[in-house]
């Protein structure tokens, strides 16, 4: 007879076999047996101050490593507090394994203390949810959870663990290997479809690669670059795709969509072939569907067949892993030996350059007021090339997407699909735990930061050297912008002047902090804070009237961009209107 172990011990051994190095969590009654086993388990645990932060930190960890991030919470409110983070991970296809405590099995369904129908609530927020019924099932469930999290289209998986199961003893039997090491990714395309795709590419005069987060998930940035350079195709990325193609590359067009650049959106309107790779034609990208790439044939490469024709009808779909599919396309192009650039392709690239010159992304670089774009550009210039950037949600998120120079994949953390405020700082914590020696910078708005700043305690407790740049415009800036532009400046409930002094608050946690209110002080402050090996915060007081342009109004197409504010408005008028109560 083998040795018996408790469910808690079996769970921790199962996690070790999945190469889990760190768990983000917060204990409670239902998981006390597990925390007792964790005491001497040799797996690092980061105590957060709200379970939502545990989910965001696990998400951030997963985005930078490509491996599942793990969070652990107690039953009832602990589990319900995870749901926002899991929903965000599902929307962005991020592998997260969430472990939730549950009341003892005999009490399930009887409205016990801190009981919630966790699995029921998790159904629309996860790829799969398991309720473990006996300790002997733990190894296979954990193995499955990790495999599902990384297979096909990655996403979050929840495992609900009754307290009685954690305390039960049994002889475990572990599956071989780690589930996350063997992701299942079906290939559904055939060689004929690859040849047809290459026919379309080589026949097109004005092609465009439209790239999303799927390229990063698949580790296909190298293959993407090879295809773009071989076939001379300009590349635009979604918010999720930033970093998949170097921002400074001559073929890079940056982000498209609602806040995409003029040249980028115009290129979309005029392309005759759009190759979508790991992107889902989200409404923030397409604008009005009938105006999205209206003259283009479309090829869609995606690992998830349900994304094909979901929002936009395409002419050809190649369902499978982006890495393998792009490799096949490159190999076919090389096989045909057509490596010279046709004149029409040259003209297309020159046209795009002229659009860039016509309306570049711009802001008032000479203003005495600190412009948020200036802060972001300065950080981009000074930070190391492999710095990891996390953002919260709002105007600062869009400005970072527009003005930060992303050179590598897995250096950008953004709650893109769900757009969850409060994401940025805890996600940065998760990323820093994965790469303790890299620069990790969180750009957060004053609104979103106030949702999760309680984890300032966490970064001090564990000496996590995250750098926090608060882009402080004393308002819910993106909401204010929409109220200004689309609701005739009827500003309602966007005033965040009644916020804490972030410098004093950070200092009360033991974090060195600075406020910057003048343009001349920005560069020095950034250099100082990035060179520090401890957590730091800078509260950048930026222009509260600055808006994010271009913007595509709701219901409009990509060709109907608003490029800037009406000329007749002067700054003082906007500020007066803004603070009128």
């Amino acid at each position: 007879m083998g040795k018996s172990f408790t469910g808690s011990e079996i769970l921790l051994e199962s996690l070790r076999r999945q190469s889990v190095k760190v768990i983000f969590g917060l204990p409670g009654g239902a998981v006390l047996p597990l925390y007792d086993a964790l005491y001497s388990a040799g797996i690092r645990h980061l105590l957060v101050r709200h379970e939502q932060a545990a989910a965001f930190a696990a998400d951030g960890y997963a985005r930078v490593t490509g491996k599942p991030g793990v969070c652990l919470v107690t039953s009832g409110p602990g589990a319900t507090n995870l749901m926002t983070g899991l929903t965000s991970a599902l929307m962005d296809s991020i592998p997260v394994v969430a472990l939730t405590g549950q009341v003892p099995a005999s009490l399930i369904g009887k409205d016990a203390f801190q009981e919630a129908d966790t699995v029921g609530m998790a159904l629309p927020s996860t790829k799969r949810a398991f309720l473990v019924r006996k300790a002997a099932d733990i190894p296979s469930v954990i193995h499955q959870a990790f495999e599902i999290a990384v297979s096909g289209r990655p996403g979050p998986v929840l495992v609900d663990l009754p307290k009685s199961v954690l305390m039960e003893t049994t002889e475990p039997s572990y599956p071989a290997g780690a589930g996350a090491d063997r992701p299942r990714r079906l290939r559904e395309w055939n060689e004929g479809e690859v040849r047809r795709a290459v026919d379309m590419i080589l026949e097109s005069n004005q092609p465009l690669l439209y790239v999303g987060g799927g390229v990063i998930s698949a580790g296909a940035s190298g293959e993407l670059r090879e295809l773009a350079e071989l076939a001379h195709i300009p590349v635009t990325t979604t918010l999720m795709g930033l970093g998949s193609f170097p921002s400074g590359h001559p073929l890079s067009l940056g982000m498209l969509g609602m806040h995409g650049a003029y040249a980028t959106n115009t290129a979309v309107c005029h392309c005759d072939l759009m190759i979508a790779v790991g992107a889902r034609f989200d409404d923030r990208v397409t604008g009005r569907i009938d105006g999205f790439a209206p003259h283009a044939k479309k090829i869609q490469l995606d690992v998830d067949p349900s994304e094909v024709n979901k929002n936009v009808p395409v002419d050809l779909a190649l369902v499978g892993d982006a890495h393998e599919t792009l490799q096949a396309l490159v190999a076919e192009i090389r096989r045909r030996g057509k490596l010279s650039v046709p004149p029409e392709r040259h003209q297309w690239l020159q046209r795009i350059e002229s659009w860039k010159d016509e309306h570049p992304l711009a802001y008032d670089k000479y203003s005495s007021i600190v412009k948020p774009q200036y802060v972001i550009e300065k950080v981009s210039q000074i930070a190391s090339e492999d710095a990891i950037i996390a953002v919260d949600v709002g105007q600062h998120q869009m400005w970072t997407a527009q003005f930060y120079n992303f050179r590598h994949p897995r250096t950008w953390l953004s709650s893109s699909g769900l757009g969850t405020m409060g994401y940025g700082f805890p996600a940065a914590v998760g990323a820093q735990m994965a790469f303790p020696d890299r620069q990790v910078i969180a750009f957060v708005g004053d609104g979103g930061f106030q949702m999760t700043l309680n984890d300032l305690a966490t970064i001090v407790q564990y000496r996590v050297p995250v750098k926090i740049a608060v882009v402080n415009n004393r308002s819910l800036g993106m909401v204010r912008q929409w109220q200004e532009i689309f609701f005739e400046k009827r500003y309602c409930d966007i005033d965040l002047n009644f916020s804490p002094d972030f410098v004093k608050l950070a200092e009360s946690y033991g974090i060195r902090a600075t406020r910057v209110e003048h343009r001349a002080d920005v560069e020095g402050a950034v250099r100082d804070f990035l060179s520090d090996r401890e957590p730091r915060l800078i509260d950048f007081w930026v222009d509260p009237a600055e808006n994010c342009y271009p913007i595509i109004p709701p219901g409009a197409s990509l060709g109907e961009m608003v490029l800037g504010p009406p000329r007749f408005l002067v700054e003082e008028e906007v500020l007066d209107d803004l603070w009128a109560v």
Partner: protein
Amino acid sequence: MQWLLTLESDRDPIVICRLMNIFRRKGLTIETMTLAAKPEGYSCVTVVDTPGTDIDHIFNYLRSTEGVFNVACYRHEPSSAASYVFVESNANPESISRILETLPGSKIIFASHGKYLFEIRSEGRLPQSISGLGEPGFLPLSRVKTSRQRSQMELVGAISS
């Protein structure tokens, strides 16, 4: 437009709950549904009304759902080209007898709670005599797509004829 969806799942009520939630969220109008269970798992047969432009996405979404497998999609085929028939025998108990008499060799793919899905083996064409166009509880179909790998079509829960 009417479609019939069939699928099988792990024997896990969580997966079935997820399926129901998917049907709700995707806005499918469910006209009839039946679930059957056996030790090896569950099967579900549903007649839905949804535009043809959505059915590809629904099919792909279902077959990509964890715990769900062997998804098949059938289109309402109001002509003799139909090669499948879905019958709700509680509408007309004589329908089953008629099919079995007129089409010997027809194969029951699914049977549960008075609902039957037949594969018609009559040189691939449904005789006019029982095409039953417009007859209540009788839905002729042609199969559009399936994710099933094996040639066996019977669903878990089917009762052999």
